[in-house]
């Protein structure tokens, strides 16, 4: 079980409020991702749930029990840190067994569970090594192994993949997702990478300056972002924002349109512009198009093998169904 409820939780560091009162419900078995730019309070929020930081106000309950003043050791949560935080003086086996040793499980049971976890994480051959003798990916697995052996109410991940190289990151992302499918335990995952958020989450919590901007499934956030911040943060490349005349036509302060919802053509379209930078990825092509009198270039996604280059004239047509309208406060209209 792992249902976590935050009720009017507030956090101050000295005089500075980093998280104004905030409510959040995380259901049992959910994979929840906290995402936001650095300094948005996502790690602080995770640490509040972990008990590594004290809440200034409000309550946190885990499975219906008030855990606000319960020390981290007694909350029944497991955490995977960005730096892995393995015990350097212990072998992999002892690292993974540590939470079981703290829980005073008998030796045979400890060994059994460590073997199981090692098997799941492909660590069986490394059990007698020290963390210092492992690669980054292996260390990350040990950290995950240490978290899963004790069968916690929920897993907390604090940017666990940011120290890995790009290829390894994609692999570990899949492994963590698979682990979640298998264990069906609540997972709370903090990242600044919206791709990780989109690919892994059942539910994404977008944070900005300590405030929850929106909570929803990846596609909900993609289809109907509640405000300009979420619209710009979710999706890659970023949504294009147009103000002024174009927005005025649609009775909005600003309109947003995603690069993939603009059709590019060499011959006809609503807008005409010139290709600035063109990025040919093979599967897709991204054009940065300069339209006369517009302050910023428009990013457009086109098919993989469209042969248009710097300086070419290009015609753009937005999909009218997919235009997002925002008012002067940046809130979604309609």
């Amino acid at each position, binding site marked *: 079980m792992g249902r976590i409820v935050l009720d009017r939780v507030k956090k101050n560091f000295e005089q500075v409020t980093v998280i104004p009162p905030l409510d959040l419900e995380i259901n049992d078995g959910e994979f929840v991702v906290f995402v936001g730019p650095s300094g948005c309070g996502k790690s602080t929020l995770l640490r509040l749930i972990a008990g590594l930081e004290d809440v200034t106000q409000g309550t946190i309950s885990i499975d219906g029990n008030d855990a606000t003043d319960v020390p981290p050791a007694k909350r029944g949560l497991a955490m995977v840190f960005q730096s892995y935080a393995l015990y350097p003086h212990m072998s992999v086996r002892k690292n993974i067994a540590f*939470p079981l040793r703290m829980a005073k499980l008998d030796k045979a049971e400890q060994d059994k569970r460590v073997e199981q976890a090692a098997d799941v994480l492909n660590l069986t051959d490394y059990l007698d090594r020290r963390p210092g003798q492992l690669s980054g990916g292996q260390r990350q697995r040990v950290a995950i192994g240490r978290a899963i052996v004790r069968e916690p109410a929920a897993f907390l991940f604090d940017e666990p993949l940011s120290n890995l190289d790009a290829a390894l990151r994609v692999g570990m992302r899949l492994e963590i997702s698979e682990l979640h499918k298998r264990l069906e335990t609540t997972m709370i995952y903090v990242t600044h990478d919206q791709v990780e958020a989109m690919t892994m989450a059942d539910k994404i919590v977008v944070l900005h300056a300590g405030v929850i901007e929106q909570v929803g499934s990846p596609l909900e956030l993609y289809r109907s972002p509640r405000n300009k911040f979420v619209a710009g943060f979710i999706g890659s490349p970023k949504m294009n924002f147009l103000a002024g005349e174009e927005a005025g036509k649609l009775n909005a302060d600003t309109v947003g349109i995603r690069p993939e919802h603009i059709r590019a053509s060499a011959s006809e379209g609503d807008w005409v512009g010139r290709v600035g930078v063109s990025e040919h990825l093979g599967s897709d092509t991204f054009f940065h198009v300069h339209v006369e009198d517009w302050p910023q270039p428009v990013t457009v996604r086109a098919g993989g093998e469209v042969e248009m280059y710097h300086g070419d004239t290009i015609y753009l047509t937005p999909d009218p169904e997919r235009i997002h309208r925002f008012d002067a406060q940046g809130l979604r209209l309609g």
Partner: protein
Amino acid sequence: MARAVSTQQKTINTVLAWAIGLLIFFPILWTILTSFKTEAQAINDPPLFLFFDWTLENYAIVQERSDYMRFLWNSVIIAGGSTIVGIIIAVPAAWSMAFVPSKRTKDILLWMLSTKMLPAVGVLYPINLIFIQLGLLDTRTGLVIIMMLINLPIIVWMLYTYFREIPGEILEAARMDGAGLRDEILYVLTPMAIPGIASTILLNFILAWNEAFWTLNLTAAKAGPLTAFIASYSSPEGLFFAKLSAASTMAIAPILILGWFSQKQLVRGLTFGAVK
């Protein structure tokens, strides 16, 4: 080519390091050599390096005249005792400053270090008076206390820098893994801090062993350690270079052997904390 240059550089570095090492070691070597000469040979001009009549008579005389073992034992008690007491006080102090720092932690550390900036002789008179009042003059207890106090700032600083190196996330991980404060200290912090604590102990022991100002000024016949033993041979009444050298060699021998065996720890201790 880059390889050739680096090999050449390496050779130069090695030669230079040996030259500096020998230069620093030379007075000790000279002392040891002199201890095997007769008094006449010891003051020979030009100085004799290796070709003289090697003799052990100085050692015999020194041993006969003064009780080496008693001085040695005093040194062990004073250096060892002050180190143990110092560590017992310094570990919790450094611990709390490293892991639960307050706004004033840096100031406290600096203030502690500032006591080392005062010349020792500046407080000789008051300390002497206090020792007389408390009946600590020429007692090992008195010296253990003063030696401990003198080195305490250095021990705290060294341990503080060691503890600071232990990443906070590892301690948090232990907490998340269900470790209480006792488990955290016993199974995670202490094993990780042991190399630091060990080299601190070693360095402190050596500092206390070699300390000469207070040991000479606060002791007489009873509690005098090896520094007093050496000093007793540098008398103004005549030149006893050979005997003085023999006494010095006997005094530094134990610490030299200890240092030799714990070189690795010591070097780490000296370079790591960047304290001394």
